[in-house]
């Protein structure tokens, strides 16, 4: 597929005219030639149109060569089809995405050269087919109309348009001459990456510019973890945790199931140890943490504790296990937790994992290594790998050094390849000011962001799906990153820019192939093709480390004192802020708070009560004189004294979607206290309305009481959430069905007979669900679900077909349990929505799908009123065409919500062509991914027609719904209920399976599997 500029904007056409005629008048006339032309801003008046047409005609006449045809467009039905290509049948390519320098294996679905959906690569050991929210959402960033479209020159608010040729001239004039000893004023700032090609290019770059300073920085880093390993082992290591083999898992302020480079694998392994509850055994998860994390939400034993107290807790554990000698400090209220944990760990020697999170000091990490060693876990449940960081200083130190050099005037040319240090560097370093002292600052990024506006050169970066590269998984397994599409805006990748700096052609493919030429053996071409096909290169893991930790003499750092401590975490949706312009992620209800379009200062419920703070009240946070105002959010299960905030908000140059959303926590984050800091909290009296998709917790007392009745008290089964402990489950295996039993009353036979060989059904295992939201974004991407914007979420009009209901059970001031209950249309056989629709727009098909006929729907919304699950979503406005941020207010300050002619040309490229894009006034809901069912049925029928299989039935596993595919814990199972051997039938036969609200006689096709917890016996 050609770049957008050629096919859609005609930019090459005008530019070629200008090149042919070389007329400056024409350039003036066009006004914007040379600059990247936004296709949508090209609105010509009639007069202007005639001017330009006149000018074109005369210029064309002058040169006779100006008459050019538009770029060729291919139409779908080829007269002679290219071999191997079937129009309308998507192709899949394996590639990777990287975060924190670690690669995730992806499989990207591409329609006619247009990538539209990302899945995990089933062959990749750290994906196994699952994906994270960011993997899913990156496709939206690819087609973000606000991505940078051309090289630009700054600094300043408005960057001047430029192009790559001019930048090359700059390299010739300013950089190329510094080779050798003259390179001392040169510095390169990159995002950390384990990519072999980047490492090779770094080596080559430093060879050419030996005195240049090479710095790695990413705000969400694992510095302290790395330091801890060095402290314990004297070298850089990383642990590969085998949660599948661990029977006791203890996490101290760690979130291995969400914020970890290997989270997907962790979640898969962990879920194995949970689902085995049906066989009577189950792992037990202990979590001590300051505020709820994904991992904490599924803990069996959870202790809310101040982050600054975690080191003492770990030390107490170490003392009790005999790892270190000495006296444990006072354990105010934590004794029971530690005692239970100690007993459990001693019973499961070599079958446990103790883990501490990246926000804890290095000394704690060292202690935990020693504890794991004492428990015999190293080499069993934890494999140690050599970390590629080697001897290099931590990223924070590197950043500090870079700023020191910049301030000292030692850097006069800085090349920033990716990242956004002006926004996310530690506040005390004042990176922006230091950047002002650099004479030539070059910044490569996807957006013209905060850093771009302070640099002399902005270079558009190629999206991960647009460029060649490579990367390595958490254990070192390498993958090659292959582009799915040519760069839409002519962007380049970091390795290509490095090649340019070396004076070489910016040819990503050649650079990556060069790296791998040595590694892939003699038969390079076929090995290369295999590597691209598989998405992994076998046998490339890091060397394993056999070492014994030494922790003698390790002293805990001084504790953060003060009434309140600030706990700074990456955001579950926006991560470090790089996704700020991604509408899917902005509107993704955050786990546990269900908050969208905002970040908040989470305070414990008891603190909120004491200070009289209500949800949404604006509080002022002050850390060492740095102040920030954020809306407060009383968070159940948060440790008193903790104020938890997330990074990534308060962007000023993120793009239209992300600008000005939330508050910038980086302003409070210093290099010395990047995770925990003493903070002063004071209410300001202001109030800010928060957009939450679900607000049933901490409401009025009557509402809370009603929720408790329906969900059940802590440790008890409720009406809508069935749960039991492992012991109770063993004693009463049929507890989940006892509540209401099977209510199948029917005065008359249902009008639809389900006589089709296919009867689709689903199960959702709530024991395995960790509430990670991957399914929510996957559904949004697969089904063209629109983003509605903050004001619409406040009005309860979010469009997600799949939501993850969260219920807290127990005392919000203590440590409540959490239930994650994913709910989407359950496809009732006796569907209440169907008989009330006056126009027959929602009906049943013979395979049991409750189908919504969009073009028949007139939008009475009666179906939604009558749906007890409230899974139907209504297009109150024309959400696809509208700007989720409200946009222009042309009249009386009213937002312009008029229907647009069409969706932005670029944005609509992300649409799944197999799913209707719904207009306003139409009801929609989960379809069980009917397009995937149809595709599988067609394939099965074709295979049968060609004699390849005995019948036209779809086999189990041939239809995988988008949510099912994304789920890291495989909590969702979909299949044919008429196939007795299918997994879904096995799951529905599971004793934990129950029909949500089945007492209403809706006969849902989706069943939920009850929650089983495994608390320690007292």
């Amino acid at each position, binding site marked *: 597929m050609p770049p957008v500029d050629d096919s859609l904007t005609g930019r090459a056409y005008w530019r070629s005219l200008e090149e042919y005629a070389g007329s400056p008048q024409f350039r003036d006339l066009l006004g914007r030639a040379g600059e990247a032309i936004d296709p949508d801003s090209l609105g010509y008046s009639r007069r202007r149109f005639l001017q330009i047409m006149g000018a074109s005609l005369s210029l064309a006449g002058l040169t006779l060569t100006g008459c050019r045809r538009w770029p060729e467009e291919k139409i779908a039905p080829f007269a002679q089809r290219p071999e191997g290509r079937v129009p309308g049948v998507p192709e899949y390519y394996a590639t990777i995405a990287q975060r924190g320098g670690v690669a995730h294996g992806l499989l990207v679905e591409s329609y006619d050269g247009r990538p539209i959906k990302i899945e995990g690569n089933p062959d990749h050991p750290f994906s196994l087919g699952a994906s994270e929210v960011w993997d899913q959402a990156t496709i939206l960033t690819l087609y973000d109309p606000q991505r940078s479209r051309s090289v630009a020159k700054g600094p300043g608010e408005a960057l001047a348009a430029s192009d790559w040729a001019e930048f090359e001239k700059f390299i010739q004039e300013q950089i190329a001459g510094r080779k050798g000893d003259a390179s001392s004023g040169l510095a390169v700032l990159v995002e950390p990456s384990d990519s072999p090609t980047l490492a090779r290019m770094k080596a080559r770059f430093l060879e050419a510019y030996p005195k240049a300073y090479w710095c790695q920085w990413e705000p969400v880093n694992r510095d302290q973890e790395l330091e801890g390993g060095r402290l314990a082992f004297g070298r850089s290591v990383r642990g590969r945790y085998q949660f599948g083999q661990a029977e006791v898992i203890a996490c101290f302020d760690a979130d291995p199931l969400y914020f970890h480079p290997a989270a997907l694998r962790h979640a898969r392994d962990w879920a194995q140890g949970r689902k085995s509850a049906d066989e009577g055994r189950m792992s037990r998860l202990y979590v001590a943490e300051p505020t709820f994390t994904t991992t904490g939400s599924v803990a069996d034993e959870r202790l809310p504790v101040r982050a600054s107290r975690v080191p003492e807790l770990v030390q107490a554990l170490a003392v009790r296990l005999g790892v270190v000698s000495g006296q444990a400090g006072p354990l105010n209220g934590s004794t029971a937790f530690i005692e239970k944990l100690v007993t459990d760990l001693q019973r499961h020697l070599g079958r446990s994992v103790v883990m501490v999170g990246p926000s804890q000091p290095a000394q704690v990490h060292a202690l935990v290594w020693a504890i794991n060693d004492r428990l015999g876990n190293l080499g069993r449940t934890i494999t140690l790998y050599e970390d590629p960081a080697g001897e290099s200083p931590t990223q924070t130190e590197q950043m500090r050094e870079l700023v020191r050099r910049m301030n000292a005037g030692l850097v006069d040319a800085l090349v920033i390849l990716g990242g956004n240090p002006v926004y996310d560097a530690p506040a005390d370093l004042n990176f922006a000011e230091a950047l002002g002292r650099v004479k030539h600052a070059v910044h490569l990024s996807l957006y013209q962001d905060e850093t771009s506006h302070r640099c002399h050169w902005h270079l558009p970066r190629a999206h991960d799906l647009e460029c060649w590269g490579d990367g390595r998984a958490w254990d070192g397994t390498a993958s090659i990153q292959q582009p799915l599409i040519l760069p839409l805006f002519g962007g380049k990748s970091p390795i290509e820019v490095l090649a340019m700096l070396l004076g070489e052609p910016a040819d990503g493919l050649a650079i990556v192939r060069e790296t791998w030429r040595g590694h892939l053996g003699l038969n390079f071409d076929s090995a290369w093709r295999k590597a691209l096909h598989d998405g992994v290169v076998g046998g490339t893991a890091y060397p394993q480390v056999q070492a014994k930790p030494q922790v003698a003499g390790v002293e805990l750092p001084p504790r953060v004192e003060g009434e309140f401590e600030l706990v700074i975490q990456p955001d579950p949706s926006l991560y470090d802020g790089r996704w700020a312009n991604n509408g899917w992620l902005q509107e993704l209800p955050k786990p546990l708070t269900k908050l969208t379009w905002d970040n908040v200062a989470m305070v414990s419920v008891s603190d909120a009560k004491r200070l009289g703070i209500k949800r949404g009240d604006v509080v002022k946070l002050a850390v060492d004189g740095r102040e920030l105002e954020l809306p407060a959010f009383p968070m159940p299960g948060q440790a008193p004294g903790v104020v938890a905030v997330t990074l990534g908000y308060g962007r000023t140059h993120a793009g239209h979607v992300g600008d000005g959303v939330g508050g910038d926590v980086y302003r409070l984050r210093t290099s010395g206290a990047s995770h925990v800091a003493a903070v002063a909290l004071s209410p300001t009296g202001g109030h800010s309305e928060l957009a939450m998709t679900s607000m049933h917790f901490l409401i009025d007392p009557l*509402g809370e009481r*009603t929720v408790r009745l329906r969900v059940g008290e802590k440790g008890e089964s409720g009406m809508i959430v069935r749960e039991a402990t492992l012991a109770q489950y063993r004693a009463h295996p049929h507890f989940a069905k006892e509540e209401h039993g099977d209510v199948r009353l029917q005065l008359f036979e249902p009008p639809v007979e389900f006589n089709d060989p296919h009867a689709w059904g689903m199960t959702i295992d709530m024991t395995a669900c960790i509430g990670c939201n991957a399914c929510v974004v996957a559904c949004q991407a697969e089904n063209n679900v629109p983003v509605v914007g903050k004001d619409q979420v406040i009005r309860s009009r979010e469009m997600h077909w799949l939501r993850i209901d969260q219920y807290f059970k127990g005392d919000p001031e203590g440590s409540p349990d959490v239930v994650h209950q994913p709910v989407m249309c359950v496809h009732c056989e006796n569907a209440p929505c169907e008989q009330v629709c006056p126009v*027959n727009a929602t009906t049943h098909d013979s395979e049991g799908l409750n189908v919504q006929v969009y073009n028949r729907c007139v939008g009475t919304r009666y179906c939604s009123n009558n749906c007890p699950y409230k899974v139907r979503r209504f297009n109150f*406005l024309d959400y696809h065409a509208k700007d989720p941020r409200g946009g222009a207010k042309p009249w009386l300050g009213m937002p312009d919500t008029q229907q647009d002619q069409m969706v932005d040309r670029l944005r609509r490229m992300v649409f799944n062509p197999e799913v209707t894009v719904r207009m306003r006034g139409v009801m929609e809901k989960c379809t069980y991914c009917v397009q995937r069912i149809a595709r599988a049925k067609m394939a099965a029928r074709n295979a049968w027609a060609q004699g390849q299989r005995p019948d036209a039935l779809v086999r189990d596993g041939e239809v995988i719904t988008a949510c099912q595919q994304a789920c890291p814990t495989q909590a969702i199972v979909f299949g044919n209920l008429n196939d007795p051997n299918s997994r879904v039938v096995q799951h529905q036969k599971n004793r934990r399976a129950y029909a949500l609200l089945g007492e209403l006689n809706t006969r849902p096709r989706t069943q939920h599997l009850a929650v089983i917890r495994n608390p320690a016996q007292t």
Partner: protein
Amino acid sequence: MATLGTIQHEAPPVDIDNTHDDPRHRAPLVTGDNDFASVTTKVAQLAQRPPALWWWVALAIASSLAGLLLALIGYLLTTGVGVWGTNIPNGWAFPIVNFVFWIGIGHAGTLISAILFLFRQDWRTGINRFAEAMTIFAVMCAGIFPAIHVGRPWLAYWLFPIPNQMAMWPEFRSPLLWDVFAVSTYATVSLLFWYVGMIPDLATLRDRAKSRLGQIAYGVLSLGWTGSMRQWHRFEKAYLLLAAIATPLVLSVHSVVSFDFAVSQLPGWHTTIFPPYFVAGAIYGGFAMVLTLAVPARYLFGLQQIITKRHIDNMCKIMLATGLIVAYAYGIEYFIAWYSGHHYEQSLFVHRLFGPYAWAGWLLLTCNVAAPQLYWIKWCRSNPVMVMIVATFANVGMWLERFVIVVGSLNRDFLPSSWGMFYPTWVDIGMLIGSFGMFLTLFLLFCKFLPVVALAEVKTVMPQAHAPADHGDLRATLGDEVRSGGRH
């Protein structure tokens, strides 16, 4: 009629109290010293004389509000139903509340004209014309809302069973479809009934019209009425038949509207008491609206002797009776919620009184249960200010009742994760006010251009109609009985 003139000079009290319950005396239905001619003059002059200043002021206000409604509908159609506060879970809110409210208002007219006609309640003649007009206008207001509340109003005609190339029929099991039939039938029959009953009076206006335009317009509308005995005979047969047809509709239309709720399975909606409860509520609310219009109208138009205190008194009593039925229905709802042992049902009714919309729940009980009890007191029924206050309470209460049923049930249903509040937008409120504007505009135009009292019918309940066929001086023959307006 010189004698008549002298009596007028005596200036008797205009508003005569005829609410006495003396069984020896049948209370007169037209008070004062009126005969056929004076009644005709009093009513017809309203249409003949140029309107008063207050009429112009009221029309200006009402029609601007009606204009607001039309403008907001335009805004809605171009933008989408998102201009309202409607959301998920509150898929229905103001528009449906307004629809049910206006349909309910529309009940009193047909009840007065049809059911009371069949029951020979002669006092209905004084008020039936404008009560029916009110019905028509209320149904018009009601009809707007379901049409515009759908997401794609330009396709709303798909609700009608029109044969089409898609071979698609509507879903006959859907109560919304029953609504379409019920409301359109009701509107048609009510309009017909109103118009047929008005033909003799239109002929009167035609005969009295001075302007050419008036003569033509009333002439066309009166369908060549001459008042011949044969025409009277046919007219009365037709009127009786239409009354018989309209009577079941009074009961059916609101029963069907209540099915919108009762047939669904939402707690708070799914209840069998809804049809009778809705009908009683509609009559209660309809009479409240008739009173709201009648009490000021009889002063403003000088009709105190035709719409007498007795009429007001009777209507108050009907409100009291139907209000008690409504109160009983409320009680039964709460009782059954408790008695059913159904958690979702119970939680809903606790929420009605103590949930986020408790203010509406309590206000509703105040307006619909407490306020009408004042009508037990005779003074409250005869004091126009008190009558107006209670009727206004009832109007507010009946709107709130639908709000409590619709939003109060939707906002917290089965799964707590889906709970959500409804907040009206300015468009919601503007449309509610605008619908009142439209209603009043139509009503004011009706008062100006059409006979506000059924002249022909009123005359039949006057003593003169029952006098012996003596063509002499009626007064001389009948003496005092004419004065008291009694009837043989």
